[in-house]
């Protein structure tokens, strides 16, 4: 091989791998990105049934119904609410009145079928998306946080 061919071979293979990587990223961006919506978004924007997204808000007090492994509850941002059903074990910090983020698909009747309920790591922690969704509704107040931290 001449010097020029070698250089071409190296630059060519670099270009090829980078092009493949860029193609993969663009393809995956279209296919596998999930949007986040609060309950008001879901109802006001009339999101179509069959759409996959993340739904976040507060678990409405008194709305949790357990039947064996299936749990049904309302996710609310205090003005609108969406009924959620989920089968499986809930994260340790799932409680009524607390923030929650679920991922799943909206069904035809307006029921949100979640296939994951995201774990939180701390009992005082509010998912940022949930905090923002609540702020949008004007109902957000700083939780009566402990004086420190």
């Amino acid at each position: 091989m001449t010097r020029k061919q070698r250089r071409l071979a190296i630059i060519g293979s670099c270009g090829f791998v980078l092009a493949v990587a860029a193609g993969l990223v663009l393809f995956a961006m279209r296919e596998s990105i999930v949007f986040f919506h609060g309950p008001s978004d879901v109802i006001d924007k009339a999101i179509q049934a069959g759409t996959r997204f993340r739904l976040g808000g507060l678990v409405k007090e008194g709305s949790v119904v357990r039947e064996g492994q299936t749990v049904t509850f309302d996710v609310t941002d205090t003005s609108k609410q969406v009924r959620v059903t989920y089968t499986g074990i809930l994260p340790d910090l799932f409680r009524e009145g607390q923030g929650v983020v679920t991922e799943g698909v909206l069904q035809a009747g307006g029921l949100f079928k979640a296939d994951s309920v995201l774990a939180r790591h701390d009992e005082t922690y509010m998912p940022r998306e949930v905090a923002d969704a609540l702020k949008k509704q004007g109902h957000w107040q700083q939780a009566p946080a402990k004086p420190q931290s």
Partner: protein
Amino acid sequence: MLVEIAHFSLALALGLSLVQMVIPVWGVRRNDMALARVGEPAAVGVFLLLFFAFGVLMYAYAVSDFSVQNVAENSHSAKPFIYKLTGTWGNHEGSMLLWVLILALFGALVAVARKSLPDRLRSGTLAAQASVTVAFLLFILLTSNPFNRLDPAPPEGNDLNPLLQDLGLAIHPPLLYIGYVGFSITYAFAIAALIDGRIDAVWARAVRPWTLAAWLFLTLGIAMGSYWAYYELGWGGWWFWDPVENASLMPWLAGTALIHSTIVMEKRDSLKVWTILLAILTFSLSLLGTFLVRSGVLTSVHTFATDPQRGLFILIILMVFIGGSLALFAWRAPMLRQGGLFAPVSREGALVINNLFLAAACGTVFIGTLYPLALEGLTGAKISVGPPFFNATFLPLLIPLLLLLPFGQSMAWKRGDLLGTAQRLATAIIIGVVATVMIFAVTYGGPVAAPLGIGLGVFLIASAVWDLGERIMARASGFRAILARAAGLPRSAYGSAIAHAGVGITVIGIAATAWATEDIAVMKPGDRLSRGGTTIIMQQIFPHTGPNYREMVGRFAVEVDGKERGVIDSMKRTFITRNNMQTTEAGIRSFGPSQLYVSLGEIQPDGTSVVVRMYTKPLILLIWIGSVIMALGGALSITDRRFRVAAPAKPRARAGAGDPHPQPAE
């Protein structure tokens, strides 16, 4: 009083770091070697001061001194003693102090390792390293002081997040930090080389052990974090493509590329500019990881109290160091003497391919991690980029890399021979294919990915062993000669073979997760839950009280293929000290590298039955065992003789910096 002295010693360390940063550069400029060497005692001094400060903080935790705000917020007198100690870095301030302590430790080690480094390089490196120390000490003193006092002192502390009260997570941060921060040394080396305008094989040889050390600790740290997530979160998953995990994976990928590109630079005096860039990028990604995790941009278990001021401060540090070093690179890199070109089919060619794939894979992780943040900042739309994205981008880039790995490993320098290499690898290829076919036949009807992945892993291991064997056997006849050759082979050859075999083992563990099963059932004492040949029988549920928690214990008898195999205790803990926060302590029983994993969910309203998750995880432990073996390989390479010998007194004559003199291809 002790606490105030520790606070003062932090400030002293800042002053001394400034000395370490400025004086050596000045000394080198004036060609005054006495001044240039001031950096060495200064680096040792900074380390001792920080060591003292950290020790005092740990002592305050040990004796539960709640007059220290940091201790009051993150500790509790009833907490087990070991977690009092490890709680020192289980919070923002303490963990940042650990960060700079390790930074100073590496600085001191460079200062002490005097034999192996040319003078000018050492002075420059220490100065560049000190600049990072200065920035982070300022950060601690101005925004995150761990030595603030509370007056009056509260009678009891706030306790540590229960998830962090775990031995695995106690050693995860130090390991990870040694990795992150270790790359600051390669970064400092790169900056010193750019300023000095000289870079050669001596540089590569000096940098390589540090890079290997940082890489191996980062490997262990990531593996430990992954294992912790697996057993502590109670979900049975080991990698979630969570942004925080990605933040540690990116420097690992770049660092892996770096340890390979320095080999090319050392052996073939090539790829210089790229290696320098990679050294800068690797540490930049470490800083980015620190920023993402510490600033509160991402929310996770790593985010302690968040404070926008801190985020801004780290962002400024980030911009100064990344922007500054890249600007320096853009200015000085064209002046470095370029290395030669080389044949595409050769070991160096293969290492370029390795770098290319690792860099591209790192790029996809980078985009997947930062795109949601950028999009939210620009348009306000909130999206999440989850496992599907990474599976569709990262895996297609990593698999060809792994397939090509053995070829590169057994190819000759300068002029490789693809056909010859393939012939030499024939045995390993056949072993891999046979393994795939056999496993496919045995598990017919199961997932196809698993046998393919295991075949790949077996191929990696077989080729590593085979390659080593060939090197030992080559031209040697008789047992003695073989032993002599085996002893004479450089340790780095063993190191790389072991590390690559470790990759194969991890690949097998990952592939086998395709066979994992998950069953959920509501169980009460006497109920059975079976999957395959494995059955668990619930025996009882009973309450139990620990030092700072209450728990419900579910006890299960295990039967495998009809034989009794002991019991599993699975717990649901409630931490009274933390607002009744609950954690799940999964019950895990290992059968060789495979595990049976049982976790408890909600206690049902009737009070006697509980939701139970049972997972079978074939070969899962291989994921982490492979990582540890990779790290062992790295450790063995560090002890290679060529890193221990003294640097040549006079590094080769300088071919005037900026001389663009073209090199013949070979």
